[in-house]
């Protein structure tokens, strides 16, 4: 369960090149990408903070990022999920996520919550009226509540991924436990 204020970016089709531009993908570790999250929107002329961009506005804080539909489209770079997580977000809400981004987020403890367009709209409105509006996300119940309006939305999540997130299980441990089965599969498999 997470209750938090949220940072709204009501733009559609936010692609991974906006989330983390390619020139910041040169690192060989997973850490430190948060600094460059939305780099080219956050800074103009390279490093002058753009006061109009929401992440530079101290009024808006929180562990929930709310964005327009088709969030995370474009490249498969997991750096996009890393940078959002690294910047302190735990949940991203949109009415529609690009597939690869959604999977990458789930693999990194960042929960993508898909809500209806109407619910999303309600979230943007509540934040507009009150930047301190809070939202409550329950992974167990698969619900998100707009605490200002009381509206609740039940979201879908892959059952296996939910189990992993709740229990801190890891895909690779699971796959490694299947090694014998994979080796047996290989015996009957012909690859040309």
């Amino acid at each position: 369960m997470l209750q938090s204020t949220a940072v709204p970016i009501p733009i559609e089709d936010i692609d991974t090149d906006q989330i983390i531009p390619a020139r910041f993908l040169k690192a060989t570790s997973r850490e430190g990408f948060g600094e460059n999250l939305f780099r080219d929107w956050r800074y103009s002329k390279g490093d002058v903070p753009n006061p109009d961009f929401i992440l530079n506005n101290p009024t808006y804080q929180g562990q929930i990022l709310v964005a327009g539909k088709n969030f995370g489209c474009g490249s498969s770079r997991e750096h996009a999920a890393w940078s959002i997580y690294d910047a302190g977000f735990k949940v991203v809400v949109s009415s529609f996520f690009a597939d690869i981004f959604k999977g990458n987020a789930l693999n990194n403890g960042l929960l993508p919550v898909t809500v209806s367009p109407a619910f999303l709209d309600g979230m943007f409105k509540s934040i507009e009226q009150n930047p301190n509006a809070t939202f409550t996300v329950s992974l167990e119940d698969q619900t998100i509540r707009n605490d200002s309006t009381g509206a609740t939305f039940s979201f879908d999540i892959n059952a296996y991924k939910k189990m992993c997130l709740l229990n801190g299980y890891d895909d690779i441990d699971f796959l490694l436990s299947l090694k014998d089965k994979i080796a047996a599969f290989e015996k009957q498999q012909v690859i040309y």
Partner: protein
Amino acid sequence: MGKTLFDKIWDAHVVHTLEGGTDVLYIDKHFIHEVTSPQAFDGLRKRHIQVFRPNQTVATADHNVPTINQHLPINDPLSRHQVETLTRNCEAFGVPLYGLGHPYQGIVHVIGPELGITKPGMTIVCGDSHTSTHGAFGAIAFGIGTSQVEQVLSSQCVLQAKPMKMRISVEGQLKEGVLSKDIILYIISKLTASGGTGYFVEYAGSAIRSLSMEARMTICNMSIEMGARGGMIAPDETTFAYVKGREFAPQGPAYEEALAYWQTLYTDEDAHFDAEYVFDAADIEPMITYGTNPGMGIGITGHIPGMDEVENKVNYEKSLHYMGLDPGQELLGKRIEHVFIGSCTNSRIEDLRLVAEFLQGKTKSDHVQAMIIPGSKQVELQARREGLDKIFEAAGFFLREPGCSACLGMNEDKIPAGEYCVSTSNRNFEGRQGPGARTMLASPLTAAACAIAGKIVDVREYLN
């Protein structure tokens, strides 16, 4: 009920199914590159495990490499570090590497097919969204994130829910000057940048079947630009002829055996698709994009949509503002400063031949900077053998060395802020080709014609 091509291949690779429908999918071939693999190798080190099947992974350096003087050390220390890390990881874990200086080096989605590594019926993944390219051979190929790269390295499998299936048919004959790039830009403009999300696409129809393998790769390459997980085309005589005799293709009796299997790879007549679209090839003209996602494309003689024609006006305004264009505007005649011919979409030998043939006897406009980046070392050498580099030079172009280059602007090849680039790559996102760069996606022929004219033109006026 019959099976789709996709089902046939997917089902043959399921090792295990989890409750709730996620499959453990066996991966036949795994491609890696320097940008999305280092953290995955680190993960293996932390777990003290080896690569499970090192010979089923192939590595190359492409995203971050310079495209001139590749024989010299890389200038940028971060890029150099990333490329060296790949080399070290491949050595440590026994993964074959076609790195800088190797005759097989090139963009990962160009070298797989040209070496015969990519074959019908395979499952192929890579930490790169344009892995969909390999689907042109009738393979299930899709991009994955770094966590999944680690999954494949450690188990040769990925955890993946089965996507829905979509068929897109293009029927009839293409008009002159219309290339496969125009087909896919047209399809994306109709379906939008998110219209394929959740689906795996099969491209079918007589117009698709008439295409060469390289042209088919261009189509499958951009499947991801409408959000689809991947795209594929049933293998046929064109496919078999292309694969035959390549370095890693089966030879002799093994080829015959493979062929017999490949010939079973088609969608049964009574198979079900979750979504279907049919387009008429004759409706397609040379295409160009005007906005900041690949769905924002128009026929070259068309107008950018007016304000009243779009749904999300805020997004639309933001996008056109970035591009410095006005709603309702025509693009023909618009001055451009750069032309980029390259990327895994259009950098194969056929693309270069087509461009060279077009450029013969012409010279580029003085104010245009033109870059031609071959997709691989083999493409580069072939182009030089055929004398294409001489034609390019005479026209004011310059054939560089292989890599992703200005497709994503990780190396020095960037488009300056505010300037326009007609590009044969696949993404026109804000800043994709460099901060502030304005990208217009088009076919190699359209790009070449724009370079000559110094502005946006209809290539058909230059043919014959």
